[in-house]
């Protein structure tokens, strides 16, 4: 059965250790000394590598031109407020879309996991949806929903580009995320399903109380991976005329022929995605250790 997450290990809570992966176990001096030496070597080799790369780039004759068009501090200051404003819109789109995706995809995955001939039409419907949506380029989906649906001028259907842009993302990402969930459900040992059914739980109850909680835990890193991907893909709705961060950078680029705005946008996207990636690593590492502890 699904187990409740235990109280947090005090070691985990104390510091931002998840930024750098597993911390060395205390009380192993030798290992720590070797760790220090390793860190030193890593530091020096990084320095050499970065130094050589910098040298190769900066010594190029064309570097001043590239610097002026891509890394111009003056332009950076000028474009920053616009890009930041656009990025806030990206964050909002992401938050709304991610919640809807997680919920909708779970429903899809649960339907797909239902057993028995009675549910055949539902399963086919969901499989058809997933196959179809995953096969369509996301940009086409955004254009189709964003421009196509409102052009039908159906009564009561919103025509906002923002609304349909986010809808397209939800439609597309739900298909992928449903497959992630399904992999999670399939990874739960069959005996769990059998035991639950033999206890008298219905299919629905089995899914809800037994399979899904374990499945979600198994695929959390994969779900977080989808998070990071979506964080950047929200920018694609710019094609509908929505002025988010990348679009603002592009407008600045078109106006001045300077690309620095894209760098500003990249900085913001990095600031948002790197913590999620580090968190995902930390989480799966913690999960791995817990499982080891459990089986020990």
């Amino acid at each position, binding site marked *: 059965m699904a187990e409740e997450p235990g109280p947090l290990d005090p070691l985990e809570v104390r510091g931002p250790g998840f930024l750098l992966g597993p911390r060395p176990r205390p009380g192993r001096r030798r290992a720590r000394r070797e760790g220090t030496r390793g860190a030193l070597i890593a530091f020096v080799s990084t320095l050499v590598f970065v130094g050589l790369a910098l*040298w190769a780039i900066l010594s190029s004759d064309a570097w001043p031109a590239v610097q002026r068009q891509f890394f111009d501090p003056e332009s950076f200051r000028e474009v920053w407020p616009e890009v930041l404003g656009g990025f806030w819109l990206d964050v909002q789109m992401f938050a709304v879309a991610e919640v809807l995706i997680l919920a909708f995809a779970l429903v899809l995955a649960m339907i797909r996991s239902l057993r028995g001939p009675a549910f055949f039409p539902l399963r086919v419907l969901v499989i058809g949806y997933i196959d179809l949506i995953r096969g369509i380029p996301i940009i086409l989906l955004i254009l189709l929903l964003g421009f196509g649906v409102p052009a039908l001028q159906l009564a009561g259907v919103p025509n906002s580009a923002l609304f349909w842009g986010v809808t397209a993302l939800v439609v597309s990402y739900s298909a992928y995320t449903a497959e992630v969930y399904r992999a999670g459900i399939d990874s739960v040992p069959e005996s769990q399903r059998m035991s639950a059914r033999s206890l008298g739980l219905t299919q629905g109850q089995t899914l809800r109380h037994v399979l899904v909680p374990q499945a979600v835990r198994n695929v959390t890193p994969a779900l977080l991976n989808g998070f990071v991907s979506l964080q950047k893909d929200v920018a694609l709705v710019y094609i509908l005329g929505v002025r988010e961060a990348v679009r603002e950078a592009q407008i600045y680029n078109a106006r001045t022929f300077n690309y620095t705005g894209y760098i500003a946008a990249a900085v913001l996207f990095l600031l948002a995605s790197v913590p999620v990636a580090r968190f995902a690593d930390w989480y799966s590492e913690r999960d791995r250790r817990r499982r080891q502890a459990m089986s020990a």
Partner: protein
Amino acid sequence: MRLRLGMTILLVLALVAAACGDSEGDDGGGGESCAIEDLELVAPGMLTIATGEPVFPPWMIDDDPTNKQGFESAVAYAIATEMGFADAEVQWVRTGFDQAIAPGPKSFDFNIQQYSITAERDEVVDFSDGYYTASQALIAYADSPVQDATTLDDLKPYRLGAAIGTTSLDFIEEVIEPDTEPAVYDTNADAKAAFDAGQLDGLVLDLPTAYFVTAVEIEEAAIVAQFASPAEDPEEFGLLFAEGNSLVDCVNEAIAALEDEGTLTALADEWLTEASDIRVIDE
């Protein structure tokens, strides 16, 4: 061990320091002669002209720059002839907007696709003198209330849009200053789709494009008005060159000659509908 590490660090620091030092490139100076054999051309003996992909009327017809049909195709060949190139010595390449303005070597001698000349852009590329002065125009559905607008203030409540890479967006933001932030589309085609989707009340384009769009692409739409180009700072289209290109002076000579003999005006009359019957909004 420790000594070697120290040496390595020193070496790296030295490398970085060296890299940060001077590395100035030398811009080749241009020759004074405009004879074809003296020009620094991308392909020897050939004038290589770039344009967009695809290209639209009235600037070029049938997406074919080589047929001399359409204003920009005609102007390009007129300039080439003025410089002494036979038609067969003109070759065309297609570039996207970004490709044309990115730093680095260019695949063309000059690029013609309604580039507006601005001081900011001039810092990273070179422009010829203007070959056309454009006014902006607003289009909207023929039955839209936007059609009744007679002043800039009347336009403020509407959702307006422009295509990226045009100066129409600047025009909306700086001159009309609408209440809602103008939307920006990749192409006129996308802007048109937003129009059809009811996400947009009015679209600002340069006037010749507005004629084409209302006549062919969005037949339900009509031109609301044109806006007077400010006399002190008119919006001009120029040919785009890589920065420091030595060809600019010779091309400017050709453009000046075409201007003097009236060829540019004649071509504009031939390909770009004159706008005498369109209402002008200037306040």
